[in-house]
């Protein structure tokens, strides 16, 4: 039996953050039912759908979609059709929680805001996870994971003072929002399990990123001054930075992070690199940090980055090579821990899947099923849970309320069409 066996989640979310939140629950054995429609499919399948893309099975080829939707079941329901909405509410009656991350007013427009859902299921949990939270003047504002990072204050803590506030990622907020979303659902589930009470849960993805910016927030809070933006230099340690390494089979952009946190580590580094012996204690190293970085870079530059990482670590010096995302599939540690689980998936074939980042013992929790195809479980869910017969399912199909192929939105202009009704 899995940890969350017996728990059912209706996943109305799209993009990265919401689906990732629900994936965590699915990974622990919850029955997560993802609901899309043929026209309003998860925009992470594509935000630029075209007829050609549909004909080419593009909806099933999105790496991003497939990564965050494994272990789930998927149905289609046109929630803008009264019958589609009614069937969703029937499904909600059997669920413990609903998770959504539509833009602020979509649930209201669909007449699916919390009071409507609660009327169907009084003990239901609704987790709403918009970028800025569901209250306050920005509640209905749109955002992606990049917007979340920009809004968090974090870019003012990165990089060099002479550069613009510096972002770390194309969508930093999404992954953090997803993990926080799973936390929110579980916290409410725990109360529900003890009392039978559901409730509305509001998550702000931007506020979730404040923890990552807390070093700056706390510095300002105690001193009234933000930390200086000084690239890779540290006000506490030296050396501290990224140093070039020899070109290898991965190309010429190979770097090694080296950080020395104490004098023991410094002495170990000097033993390996005697040229650094001219530098003294921490104060001296900080005062001459530019020269120190130059000397260290001269030592690392002709060396193989990965081999040097192992040598330095063996000597007790903190070091790590800058992996490419391609390297991740072959990384020694990830291979040793069987982090990537390979699994066949319809249309795209064999795919690597990241394991859940918490595991009982040495082996990762096995992944039960790859990401479902659009509407893959219409019969199993609408028939198996709601008891709809074949004739009714065929009728729904004819009406376009359910289906297994995406359609261009009726109002789409020529070329591409927005299918999203959401933020990440």
């Amino acid at each position, binding site marked *: 039996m899995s940890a969350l066996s017996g728990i059912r989640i209706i996943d109305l979310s799209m993009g990265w953050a919401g689906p990732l939140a629900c994936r965590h629950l699915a990974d622990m054995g919850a029955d997560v039912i993802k609901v899309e429609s043929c026209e309003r499919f998860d925009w992470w399948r594509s935000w630029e759908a075209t007829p050609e893309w549909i004909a080419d099975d593009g909806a099933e080829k999105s790496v991003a979609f497939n990564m965050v939707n494994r272990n789930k079941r998927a149905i289609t329901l046109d929630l803008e059709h009264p019958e589609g909405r009614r069937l969703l509410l029937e499904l909600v009656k059997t669920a413990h929680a609903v998770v959504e991350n539509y833009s602020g007013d979509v649930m209201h427009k669909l007449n699916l805001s919390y009071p409507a859902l609660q009327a169907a299921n009084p003990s239901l949990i609704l987790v709403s996870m918009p970028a800025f939270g569901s209250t306050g003047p920005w509640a209905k504002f749109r955002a992606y994971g990049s917007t979340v990072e920009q809004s968090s204050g974090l870019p003012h803590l990165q990089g060099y003072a002479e550069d613009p506030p510096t972002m770390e990622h194309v969508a930093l907020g999404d992954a953090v929002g997803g993990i926080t979303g799973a936390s929110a659902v579980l916290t409410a589930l725990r109360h529900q399990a003890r009392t039978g009470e559901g409730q509305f849960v509001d998550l702000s993805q931007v506020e979730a990123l404040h923890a990552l910016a807390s070093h700056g927030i706390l510095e300002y809070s105690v001193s009234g001054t*933000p930390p200086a933006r000084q690239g890779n230099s540290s006000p506490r340690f030296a050396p501290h930075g990224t140093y070039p390494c020899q070109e290898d089979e991965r190309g010429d952009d190979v770097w090694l992070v080296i950080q020395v946190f104490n004098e023991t580590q410094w002495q170990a580094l000097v033993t390996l690199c005697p040229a650094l012996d001219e530098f003294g204690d921490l104060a001296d190293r900080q005062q001459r940090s530019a020269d120190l970085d130059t000397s260290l870079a001269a030592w690392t530059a002709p060396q193989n980055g990965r081999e040097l990482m192992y040598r330095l670590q063996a000597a007790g010096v903190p070091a790590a090579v800058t992996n490419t995302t391609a390297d991740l599939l072959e990384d020694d540690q990830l291979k040793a821990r069987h982090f990537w689980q390979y699994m066949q998936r319809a249309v795209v074939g064999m795919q690597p899947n990241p394991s859940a980042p918490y595991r009982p013992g040495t082996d990762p929790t096995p992944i039960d099923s790859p990401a479902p195809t659009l509407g893959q479980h219409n019969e199993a869910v609408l028939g198996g849970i709601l008891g709809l017969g074949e004739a009714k399912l065929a009728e729904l199909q004819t009406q376009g309320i359910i289906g297994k192929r995406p359609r261009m939105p009726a109002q789409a202009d020529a070329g591409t069409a927005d299918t999203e009704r959401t933020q990440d």
Partner: protein
Amino acid sequence: MTHALDGLVVLDVSGSIATAYCAKQMADYGAQVINLEPVGGFATRFEPPFVEHLHAPENSALHAYLNTNKRSVCMDALTEPQLRTLLHSAHLLLDDGHLPSRMLPWQPADHCVRMSISWYGAEGQYADFTGSDAQIFALNGMLRNIGHEAGPPLIPTGHQAQFVAGMTAYVGALGHVLAAELGNTNAAVHLNTSIFEAALCFTDVGAITYYNTGLQPARLGINRYPPTSPMGVYPCRDGWLGVSVLTPSQWHAFCELLELPELKDMPLFQTTIGRFEANDIIEPMMCEKLLQHSAEELFYKGQASAIPLARVPTMEELFSVDQFMQRQAFSSASMVGGAQISVPSVPFRLFSTPPHFGGPVATLGEHDPGSLS
């Protein structure tokens, strides 16, 4: 007031940033979190920034943020029976992969979940590596793409990987605590979270993309991350504006906002990739327009047109953003002697069983073992 995690007993015996952040969410939601500290206190007590007029080990603002609403007991103050009783009562034990010698051999109660959060996990080639947030971001593939094209790649500041791992561990730990309460498990569980693997949440999609396409994005410069385009943080007349334009309708609305009709319908610019490849054409025109307006004005006008624009607040501005003020995004941690500092609040809110906003920070060994019920 009822809290969602009432009745839950959590012991933190390591006090790392990751275990502390995991337990912090639980304490803020009503769990009884007990820091079992060594005589000198947890390492976070000695991490900056420090409150100027306070003294170690009670002056760390980081420790205060991470430890609101928890209790502090010195492990050495516990008698053997007290320690055993405490361990038996715990629903969740948090550590960094190593238990204090007094707790060995570990004999957990059947309902106990143990969550060990370590840098790389207990096995594999990196198991004995020294860890740090920067090293995690180097190995997870993220660091390489931050910074100027010529390098060096930039290290993300702070303790970001540890916070991500703390929240990730919260998910695994609470999921399994719930499993015990639901009767889905009937034996103790020892989970482990590797900070490295937790931080792969940012880059795993890149690895799978490479597997399917052979494409490996290079470092392209400050705030250049395909495919979203235009995207970045841009100067305006009086501040910074965050731009993320993804869909065709957002692009059209953005061009109208900036009065750049000549770009709006150009076929090449109707997709993000097309715009990304034409960044050198689009960006100068866009920047010239942005400098004619205030960031605040563009932010509100853009959002009114469903364009995901952002204010990019400095640390100083962050505390006065109306959205954050209205939502009480920051609250006070109360330190020794009545000192108060502003800290981020819990990022999710249960409406019927709300969390604590801020709260007291226990001094080292403040709680008498006998007072723990």
